[in-house]
């Protein structure tokens, strides 16, 4: 059902990347703080292995996400690349049931681009005269189609495990974006080689960040799994970063709007509060306590 980086998207991503990079940079300039300050914890410190019990997931190292912190923002170019990874890789098993194609316009796409993007997906269009399912190209108003018809089909296709819905995954997954990233990149080396994991597939795949250090999800990302339209090299790490950014964005697509609104409102209210303090002092000036 899903396709590997829909051709319709390639020019879209290409066109938008430059614009978005600029748009994304504008925000820290406006606020003066945020992502400009590096946190100094870039990557890949070995995970602390202080579990309370044997199967507890390892602590995911903190990553330097652009959206982290009170004044963070989403790097929309990374969100778009992450969409390409989602559509090309994740969508074959995972759903985004709460998301409509029109919502993806928030990645920085024009309505035409959203229509083109939707048209690269097939959705069910009811049954024909013989009772067979028919399909059509998706429209912006459609929800993203789920890869399986229901939990039973998902279980049958995945050796008994149901791939979770990703609509709010970064919000509800304990550990958040750091752990999603750690899980995607943290497969034990023996399992990450293609084919080697198949023998042990019944028991799941070794991953220190999964509960019980085993996950039913095969290592999803490899080098060049997708082609990035903006020329970024699609290493497995880069893909994991981008798709995590995309999932964080889709979990709270209006977080940036909210922060932007908040800065304006707080500045305005502080000004108003100053005026009111002056007014109150004048009105109360002759009142002895």
């Amino acid at each position, binding site marked *: 059902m899903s396709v590997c980086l829909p051709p319709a998207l390639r020019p879209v991503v290409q066109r938008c990347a430059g614009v978005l990079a600029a748009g994304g940079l504008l925000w820290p300039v406006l606020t003066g703080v945020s992502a400009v300050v590096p946190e100094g914890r870039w990557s890949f410190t070995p995970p602390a292995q202080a579990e309370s019990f044997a199967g507890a997931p390892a602590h995911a190292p903190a990553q330097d996400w652009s959206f982290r912190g009170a004044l963070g923002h989403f790097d929309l170019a990374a969100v778009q690349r992450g969409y390409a990874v989602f559509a090309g890789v994740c969508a074959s098993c995972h759903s985004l049931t709460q998301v409509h194609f029109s919502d993806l316009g928030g990645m920085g796409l024009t309505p035409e681009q959203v229509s083109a993007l939707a048209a690269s997906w097939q959705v069910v269009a009811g049954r024909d005269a013989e009772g067979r399912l028919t399909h059509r190209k998706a429209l912006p108003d459609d929800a993203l189609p789920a890869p399986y018809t229901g939990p039973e089909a998902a279980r049958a296709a995945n050796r008994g495990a149901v791939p979770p819905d990703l609509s709010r995954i970064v919000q509800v997954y304990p550990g958040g974006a750091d752990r999603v990233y750690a899980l995607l990149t943290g497969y034990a080396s023996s399992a990450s080689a293609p084919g080697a994991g198949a023998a042990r597939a019944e028991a799941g795949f070794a991953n220190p960040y999964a509960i019980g250090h085993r996950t039913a999800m095969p290592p999803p990302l490899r080098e060049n799994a997708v082609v990035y339209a903006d020329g970024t090299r699609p290493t497995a790490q880069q893909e994991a970063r981008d798709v995590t950014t995309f999932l964080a964005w889709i979990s709270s697509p209006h977080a940036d*709007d909210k922060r932007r609104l908040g800065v304006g409102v707080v500045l305005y209210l502080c000004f108003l509060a100053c005026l009111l303090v002056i007014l109150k002092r004048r009105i109360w*000036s002759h009142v002895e306590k």
Partner: protein
Amino acid sequence: MPFIVKHGNTGLHGVRDAVSGRGEGNQMAEIPSSREQADQAHGGLAPEPPGGAEPASAPEAAPMPAGVGVAAFVRAYGAFPLPRDLNFLWTVGAMLVALLALMLLSGLTLALTYTPDASLAFSSVEALERRAPSGWLLRSLHMTGATFFMAALYLHVFRGLCYASYRAPRQGLWTIGTLLLVLVMVTAFAGYVLPWGQMSYWGADVASKAVGAIPLIGGTLEQVFLGGDAPGSATLHRMFVLHFTLAFTIVGMVVLHVAVLHAKGSTSPSYRPGSGGASGATLPDAAGRSRMLPFHPYFTVKDTLGVVVLAILFTLVMCFWPGLVSEVENYRPANPLHTPANIEPEWYFLPFYGMLQAVPSKFGGLLVSGGAVAILFLVPWLDRGTAATCAAGRWGGLRWLPCVALAVLACSFVLCGLAGRHHVQGGWMLVGRLATLGYYLYFLAFLPFYARLAQKELRS
């Protein structure tokens, strides 16, 4: 500094004594004013003989000369005399009114998109957040508003306990206020069920089981509450209707609360024996009136400042730290087959949840946690002291005792919440029980005991 408000109001609202002693009544009244409205309001208060009229008459008399109408009503409320030494805790009431308006407006707009059906509720809330115009903003306002409303309400009640605002003649005011607290808590709970996430579902489940623990009628009540054997569409309909209707009931009760406040007058943080009664006494006599200021402009500007400061805090939490007021587990759709590891209510119910769990028996726990709210209704009758007796008592050796007792009460409340959060496991069980005891001791031991002690001291 020629500032018109100064002359226009101090002279014409019957508070000329307040102007640092320089204003004589007649002299100030002769000052020509360009404001007719102030003149009319003046008629209501100034002619009263000091100390002569009944308490309630002062604010009520104001609209009479100007006739009946919105303008007269507004003038009467603008002239409402308040003690001048009210501290910031007295602006919490204004904050609550502002928050109530916010909750009502955002709630009404949210209701346009929401669908109270077990299979549709979660996705209708998701659609609201993702696609409805400014839906994310409305929902954030409503969610953050719920937390701030409950926090402000607890502060308001605590202020009432601190300054004994429940004493005669304000028992009615206190009773209405406590009823409002109960209504708001029920509304908050009903509202939390509506998004139909995991915590909504399991919260409704726990609440229904708690209701079911009542002997005799429990089973029936549980059926009525759930509309079936387990939470479902029928429960959602009930909660939606309850949430919606109670919101307007609360508005009506707030109007009543404010009307009674205007009839009985406000308390104040200080007590001055020289002023012939508590400074919060309803009727200001000559000395007491000098401590009063009209509501407008003095307290309108103070309350507005309070509301703006609250709005700043509100925006900071809503826009930059939304995780403080949202429970992530509730972003998972309700799943009757999967019980979450940690079922816990919103923070504002945690103290009562802790009490519920601290008692081994199910029904006993329900009685204790429900009684923690119900006992507030009895406070005016548990504390038999008057302002005069207690002030006299405070000059005795035990001035520190009320402060200690209030601190114990506040700490117990917080500790109960923490114990509830940790499911009263291990050491938290002991903490939860001690805190529950501390909470009840304030009402059942300290209040009656202290009033009696103060009375004894006054007599001796």
